[in-house]
């Protein structure tokens, strides 16, 4: 009874990937992979997704801790707000970022006037767009891990005289490490695949803001084979990272 829809679901997820593999121009693959544009886009994607994940960890773990461990009014509203970027179309996220951090944006206007800082069309802009869409994944994973962990360990440490920071560092973090890692991986994967917010907020320029998904999209206009090769690379990179991390730390 359940096997049929399960098989259909599996086929629906796997067939498109198989279709991609069938159509890849294997004979010209090595030459195409060595093209500087491909390597440039790949390098940019890896660097920006990793930078975005680092920032997400730095901001997201404390945010998750606040949501899970601190009682305050409006906590549920706050949690709902954090999940908005999860359901928001990324293009809309990109427009929202422009309206706030763009050169004429609410905050961007002042950053430009006072410090000469502008984010659109820069690699920093790409990282910002990725953080916007990926941070909720990390926060939700870590918050889940925190809720599942037993607060009595933390209380015990506190009664033994440990400060809040020591408790967090020595007790809480080791307890939720698998959750943080899982969240980090999800966050990285989401950042790597980011398209809509990036092309809207950061634009598209090779070497600076053209990440792999943007390169795939533009290659599709004139050279579908190149798009296939790029897609294959992106697929392999994501699978490798996910598999490696899973085997090592996640069960």
């Amino acid at each position, binding site marked *: 009874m359940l096997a049929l829809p399960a098989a259909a679901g599996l086929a629906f997820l796997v067939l498109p990937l198989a279709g991609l593999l069938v159509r890849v121009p294997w004979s010209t693959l090595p030459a195409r992979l060595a093209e500087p544009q491909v390597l440039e886009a790949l390098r940019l994607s890896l660097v920006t997704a990793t930078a975005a994940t680092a920032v997400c960890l730095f901001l997201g773990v404390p945010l998750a801790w606040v949501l899970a461990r601190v009682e305050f009014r409006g906590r549920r509203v706050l949690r709902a707000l954090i999940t908005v970027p999860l359901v928001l179309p990324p293009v809309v996220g990109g427009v929202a970022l422009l309206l706030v951090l763009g050169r*004429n944006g609410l905050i961007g206007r002042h950053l430009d006037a006072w410090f000469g800082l502008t984010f*659109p069309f820069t690699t920093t802009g790409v990282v910002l767009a990725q953080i916007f869409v990926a941070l909720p994944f990390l926060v939700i994973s870590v918050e889940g891990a925190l809720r599942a962990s037993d607060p009595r360990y933390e209380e015990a440490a506190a009664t033994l005289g440990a400060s809040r920071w020591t408790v967090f560092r020595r007790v809480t973090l080791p307890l939720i490490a698998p959750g943080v890692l899982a969240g980090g991986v999800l966050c990285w994967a989401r950042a790597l695949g980011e398209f809509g917010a990036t092309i809207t907020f950061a*634009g598209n*320029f090779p070497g600076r803001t053209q990440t792999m998904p943007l390169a795939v999209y533009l290659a*599709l206009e004139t050279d579908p084979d190149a798009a296939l090769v790029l897609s294959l690379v992106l697929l392999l990179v994501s699978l490798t990272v996910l598999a490696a991390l899973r085997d090592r730390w996640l069960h």
Partner: protein
Amino acid sequence: MFRRLIALALPLALALTACSSSGSDGGKTVTVFAAASLTETFTELGREFEKTHSGVEVRFNFGSSSTLAQQIVQGAPADVFASASPATMKTVTDASLAGAPSTFARNRLEIAVPVDGRGGVETLADLADPKVKVALCAEQVPCGAAAAKALGEAGLKVVPVTLEQDVKATLTKVTLGEVDAALVYRTDVIAAGGEVKGIAFPEAGKAINDYPITVLDGAPSPALAGEFTALVLSEQGRNVLTEAGFDAP
């Protein structure tokens, strides 16, 4: 602001729905794939067409001509293809998916600058200043190919901050004030109303884009497709296009 937001999100939504939505009610729908720069004129012509053909719905998929051409080659169910360059039309005719196209309009580039004059761009040569932020269309799409040709004619080396995927996206970067200048079609400057200022330049005359239109061989509604194409090529179509700033072929 909100209108701009919609202007940005709408083509995307259309592109996403166009693949699945056409042909659902047999011969009563005609699906037109048209270059982004035709958004305003074709929408108007579509309304005219619906007025004279009661019960018929004209559905549009506006986007960069190269994207549309690829979608058609990949089997998207379209009746009419109107592109912004013979090169993108060739993608479709080379795949034996359509007969000989007819040229129905010509378009030329202009420099679009913000109305507040920020960036101080007045001539094409100003775009080569590294301090000036310039948006161009990607060279894969017709407006980008035309821009590269015009800049080449002028002997200018311009390093843009972004290469956008279609002409409307390029123009939006100016209307939002994120860049100091962009090379877009004259018709897009006119369509933007007072939101940007257009500057004509002589080299644009060397990079004129011909707009071809054709009925696709696999058209689900070939009769309506022919009638819509005839409307575009008619006196009435000519007037709408001229009013929007297109040159006659």
